[in-house]
């Protein structure tokens, strides 16, 4: 009986630790919060019924994200939206810049970043979001998506380059950057001042 409660506790911890991340991951496929939560809850119920013995196994945490992805794709296919169709034209948008309509009224950096991620090329977005939400290693991401580690690394690089260009273009971190500039200019100014004052 005591052991049963321990399993329950492990299960609860597992759920609470990953629920938001998993729902957010599901959301990247389904674009609907309610069905995203459904998919994740159904998965946990299934784990409890079928794989109770493995709760706490290190492999399980890694399996969760893969399972969410599979279940989302199944759900999309059922709804006759072809997810893979969407992925095909990924190369068209390859290294294109991410453009955002310029009508945002002073949006928060995080909102802008979220929108920018939406606009990444599909494959790139998929790799990048799985990485950022799961915290998996490149190797685990590669296995989960059935691609090579090198591809994961390339897509991650592409994502960060696009995000960086976007951040600069839209001055997302303007406050932070200008502070750095200010600091740099100030130290240069001080340097000039010292040189002029004491070296002559």
């Amino acid at each position, binding site marked *: 009986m005591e*052991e049963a409660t321990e399993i329950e506790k492990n299960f*609860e911890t597992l*759920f609470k630790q990953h*629920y938001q991340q998993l729902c957010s991951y599901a959301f990247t496929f389904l674009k609907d919060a309610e069905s995203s939560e459904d998919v994740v809850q159904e998965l946990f119920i299934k784990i409890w019924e079928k794989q109770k013995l*493995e709760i706490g*196994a290190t492999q399980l945490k890694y399996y969760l994200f893969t399972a969410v992805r599979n279940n989302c794709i199944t759900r999309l296919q059922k709804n006759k939206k072809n997810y893979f169709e969407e992925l095909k034209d990924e190369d068209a948008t390859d290294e294109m810049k991410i453009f955002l309509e310029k009508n945002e009224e002073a949006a928060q950096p995080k909102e802008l970043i*979220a929108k920018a991620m939406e606009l990444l090329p599909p494959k790139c977005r998929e790799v990048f979001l799985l990485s950022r939400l799961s915290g998996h290693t490149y190797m685990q991401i590669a296995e989960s998506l059935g691609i090579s580690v090198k591809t994961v690394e390339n897509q991650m690089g592409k994502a960060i380059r696009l995000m*960086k260009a976007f951040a600069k273009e839209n001055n997302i971190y303007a406050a932070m950057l200008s502070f750095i500039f200010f600091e740099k200019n100030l130290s240069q100014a001080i340097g000039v001042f010292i040189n002029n004052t004491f070296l002559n």
Partner: protein
Amino acid sequence: MGENIHIQEIMLRYLNGEQTPEESRQLEQWITDNPSNAEEFDLIKKIWADTSSAALIPVDTHLAWQHVKAKIMGRETKVVKMFPWKRAMAIAASLLLVISVAYFLLKPKEIEWRETFAQKANLEIKLEDGTKISLRKGGKLSIPENFGKEIRQVKLEGEAFFDVVHNAQNPFSVITANSLIKDIGTLFLVQSTGIIEQVTVMEGEVSYTTKRETQPAILLKAGESAVNVKEKVQRKNVDTSNLISWSTRILTFNNTALTIVAKDLKNYYNIEIEIAGNLGIHKITAIFNNEPLEQVIKELGLLTGLAIKMQGNKLLISE
């Protein structure tokens, strides 16, 4: 540009916690090289941090947990007001339920086995009774649906290490193709990968007999092995130090002969090893903690002064 991409890859590996010490050093150097590099790094760090929180959607985890808990506990609490006649029907319905449940409980049930495969990697499994099992890659463990209640028995194909929680009233047992192993509270390794089956005890005691119980059970103590070759059982003493390195990922050698080291490396890295002449008598003292083979080769070379190199899948050790 090539340089930029390279340093960017290092940055990302660094942020993901996958960098090598050499890469950390390179990155530090690059950051201190130029203030604009430091700025670039700060920007990427900021994006890295913000992207993980920006990707989150708002959910009520607590509420969701209540929902899931209610479902798995099979008690979705609904308060419903009932009229007397409805109540009578409810009682009748629950009586019917009790009868059918009793029927299913009393009916002799066939044991259902739940199978777990360690397909791609070793698997850590914790059973409901607290027993821990490391299943080596390639192995299969079958656990009965009703494990723990009346019987504590599992079936194994392949190799697994058991850390059993002892219970005198309900002893734990493992069945393999040819062996029957009963624990007396203990750590033990079962290798059932071919015609030869071997059970080795690291701690505590185990009672061993062949599956068909053609021979009286023997009691194995720590450091002892039972080797079963076609129903012939031999008891022998074994060095248990690196037996479960596949699970612990640690290889320990304490003044160990190179021939033994070679055997353990062969087992861990899945390679062939050839030692020239009588070099096998070299003694090695070292600990390898999940190190890549190249690193191990390098260290062994330094320790012994011998020429060690890979040729295909074979490690050659020569003067």
